[in-house]
């Protein structure tokens, strides 16, 4: 089954100013969609609407052809959203943080192989050896990487990433880009905002907000 997120005639107003009006969007399996626009053009707002977080907008959202409010649970089970705030607890170790996220998607932390998945996820983002250090003692980039470890931790088809490259070093950016492309090639799809230049790829599509 391929996934498909559609938006019809989206419009959103903030402080008597239309951020966007009459926006039609189709996001399908195998695509990386990059939302572009200057600061304050409503990129984050659009991502929040598309990930079902905001309700004060006009227009309609469809998930696999069904109105979003009817299939919200199924949508959320397949969504991975990373916002500006990383959603990582400074007082917990990276491993503890990840096991909470596993539990949120209904996976027991004592389940077979889940500890292994956590370790692999952390190793993938270059945090091997930092598993048990309180996250608050890590650098800003490393904390961000703990959040990014969620990308490999749980299988979610739709990734919605708001500025995922913030505070990440150059090698990290390249690795993350490859990960996005691999995810799209594997049939997933990525919705991303960034001020970084992404390497051109046939999978990449741009949406520009004025």
């Amino acid at each position, binding site marked *: 089954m391929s996934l498909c997120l559609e938006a019809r005639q989206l419009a959103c107003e903030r402080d008597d100013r239309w951020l966007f009006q009459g926006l039609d969007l189709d996001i399908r399996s195998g695509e990386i969609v990059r939302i572009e626009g200057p600061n304050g053009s409503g990129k984050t707002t659009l991502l929040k609407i598309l990930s079902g977080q905001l309700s004060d907008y006009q227009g309609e959202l469809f998930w696999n052809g069904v109105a979003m409010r009817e299939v919200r649970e*199924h949508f959320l089970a397949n969504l991975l959203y990373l916002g500006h705030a990383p959603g990582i607890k400074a007082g917990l170790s990276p491993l503890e943080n990840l096991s909470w996220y596993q539990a949120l998607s*209904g996976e027991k932390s004592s389940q077979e192989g889940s500890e292994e998945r956590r370790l692999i996820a952390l190793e993938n983002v270059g945090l091997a050896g930092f598993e048990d250090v309180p996250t608050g003692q890590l650098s800003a980039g490393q904390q961000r990487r703990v959040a990014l470890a969620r990308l490999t931790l749980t299988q979610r088809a739709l990734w919605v990433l708001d500025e995922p490259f913030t505070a990440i070093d150059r090698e990290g950016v390249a690795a993350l880009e490859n990960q996005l492309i691999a995810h799209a090639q594997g049939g997933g799809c990525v919705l991303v905002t960034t001020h970084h230049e992404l390497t051109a790829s046939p999978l990449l599509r741009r949406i520009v907000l004025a």
Partner: protein
Amino acid sequence: MPMIEHQGGMMIAVKATLMRDLTLLLRHRGEVLNPLVFFALVITLFPIAISPDPQLLAIIAPGLLWVAALLAALLSLDSLFRSDYDDGSLEQLLLAPQPLAALGLAKVAVHWLLTGLPLALMAPLLGIMLALPAGSYAVLALSLALGTASLSLIGAIGAALTVGLARGGVLLSLLVLPLYIPVLIFGAGAVQAAILGDGVSAHLAILGALLAIALVLAPWAIAASLRISING
């Protein structure tokens, strides 16, 4: 990539949230100790300021203990969702494919375990300082244990509504205090009745009923309030 059907696992998520919050708060003990220290300080000051006369103190002790415990619980409410809001965990909690009401209830349970329950256990000790007549200590602890659970549940609604505001503390108190009054009346009433030798079961039963209502209704109100606060 295959799509995932929602697998349930609500109890796993609730348990993990419980354990996570307990771990976090036990690592930051200051936050847990604050309301307890406040409670002890207030109760210590009263005999000094009013009079050390045990007969006078015994009359006002039930009310004093209950008011101080209520304010201590109120003081700790602001931080209930604050840190989760600041680091984005709350946003992720709302996006979890689990019922938000259940996850919110887990957070409230942790608040009660580390605020309400210790206050209830500490109250008899402070009762000695106020010359609380013997025989009412058990009722005091029990009424506080029951009452503070309601206070945590009701207060969490206010905390959820004000979490998006930079300085929501005063507003939170104004929102929540009127709803606290029934709990206060029957809680202090139970201790008073125990001192006078009347039956306490009626008061405790009403406290229990209030808790039952709060348990049924508050989780939904907390979930709705969180959605309003986060999504504007």
